[in-house]
């Protein structure tokens, strides 16, 4: 041990939380840790709450999108559990969320120039963290979800039920606050997916020659655009997370009659 101790220059010492920093370095990881726990905790609970109404008229909470109707009613658990592995896997292996939870949850490291937790460290070179390399496959599946969420958002402009909660309402095309909430939700999730580091690599980052052909020149233009989005990947990650929670809360409050959605179909 003494030998390893001497491997760093004095007055520094090895050890968990060792630092000479005097600023409030702990604030950011603490705030992010609490934020993640609150929002992810809510979504986890929500996914199991298939007994609490989660759809009304043209609105379906994105937590249960796509709706696995009919044949899955026999499924004992909440139907959301059959599909949630995609967004959960995508976010769990996301380069931004990795940074966030490695710092806030695994304290590896808790802050820059602050001693990390754990005697040994092998990063993402060994199981289970080597599985982070699967991020791109979750990203492919997440792109399908971008389409599904847009279908849900567009569907929210078309009401097919003439009687909702015992009240006669209009059917057909219309617009409500819920439709707008769902469009914003689809937009934010799309931008989160399109700013993904693996997506950036896919569209052009892996290419070694941008000028070689018309195709590679087009890829370069797409890559430039995605690179610009990618700089705000953290912002998209948080905005889409917070908004899906808000959307779920909003639709459930409407669906359970706690609030009324202003819309052109005549209220519900």
């Amino acid at each position, binding site marked *: 041990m003494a030998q*390893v101790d*001497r*491997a*760093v*220059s*004095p*007055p*520094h010492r*090895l050890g968990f939380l060792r*630092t*000479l*920093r*005097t*600023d*409030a370095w702990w604030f950011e990881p603490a705030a992010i840790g609490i934020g993640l726990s609150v929002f992810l905790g809510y979504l986890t609970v929500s996914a199991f709450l298939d007994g609490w109404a989660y759809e009304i008229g043209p609105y379906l909470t994105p937590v249960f999108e796509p709706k696995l109707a009919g044949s899955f009613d026999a499924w004992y658990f909440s139907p959301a559990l059959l599909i949630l592995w995609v967004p959960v896997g995508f976010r769990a292996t996301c*380069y931004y969320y*990795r*940074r966030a939870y*490695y*710092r806030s949850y695994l304290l*590896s*490291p808790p802050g*820059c*120039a602050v*001693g*990390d937790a754990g005697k*040994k*460290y*092998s*990063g*993402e*070179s060994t199981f289970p*963290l*080597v599985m982070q*390399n*699967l*991020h*791109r496959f979750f990203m492919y599946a997440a792109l399908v979800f971008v389409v599904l969420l847009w279908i849900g958002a567009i569907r929210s402009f078309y009401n097919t039920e003439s009687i909702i909660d015992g009240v006669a309402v209009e059917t057909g095309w219309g617009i409500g606050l819920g439709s707008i909430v769902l469009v914003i939700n689809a937009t934010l999730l799309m931008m989160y997916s399109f700013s993904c*580091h*693996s997506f950036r*690599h896919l569209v052009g*980052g*892996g290419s*070694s*020659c*941008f*000028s070689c052909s018309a195709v590679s*020149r087009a890829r*370069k233009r797409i890559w430039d655009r995605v690179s610009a989005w*990618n*700089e705000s990947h953290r912002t998209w990650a948080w905005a889409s997370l917070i908004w899906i929670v808000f959307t779920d809360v909003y639709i459930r409050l409407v669906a359970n009659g706690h609030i009324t959605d202003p819309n052109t179909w005549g209220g519900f």
Partner: protein
Amino acid sequence: MTQADTSHLEPGTSRTVTLRVFRGDASGGEFVDYTVEMDEGQVVLDVLHTVQATQAGDLAVRWNCKAGKCGSCSAEVNGKPCLMCMTRMNTLDVSKPISVTPIKTFPLIKDLVTDVSFNYEGAKQIPAFAPRAPDAADGSYRMMQQDIERGQEFRKCIECFLCQDVCHVIRDHPENKPNFLGPRQFVRLAELEMHPLDTADRTEFIREAGGIAYCNITKCCTEVCPESIHITDNAIIPLKERVVDKYYDPFRWIFGKLTGRD
């Protein structure tokens, strides 16, 4: 915010400040307080020079350009890795002593001077630039700006090794040093791998000798880089994705076998 604003100092005025400087060598040492006059607009290195000129003529400190371009004056001020010549006093709380220590990750020689040869040994291992045949008879090349510009960001590196110092992979686990080259070398590797003239494939090297999987992209290197190089986003993550292409992506492997492309 714990930072006091001392920018109210008018030109030509001064105030006293205490630097708590580590003095010693690899066998140990101690903090020594030096209280000196500080002028408006000074950086930590200026004040340290005042200390050296007036109270500690034998203080060992590396510096050269005083302009953030030579990468010599790396140290840790109030525990944060930084270039002393680019850290302005008015960003620090001068009502309390300011600690100045050598960078942690490399063996101490004396006072603020460390032996950073780990980084030069790492650089030596990197497979060298391997350009294709020249495009013209006079040995010159033709390159398009859109192909070369990605690597230009990486050429801003001044080899201050602050990223190497802050990286917890070796800062907190010195036993990883033989298996991990560190963020500065990933910047160099990204520059080579993305260079339009280069023909070598360093993916295996990046994965094996480079130890890129040890990096958990927590981004401290990017936070401290005085050249604002997007070390993680533009160098390390793209290299990790290239490693995935080669080692963890069965679709790409099958596609490559079917089409005969690499």
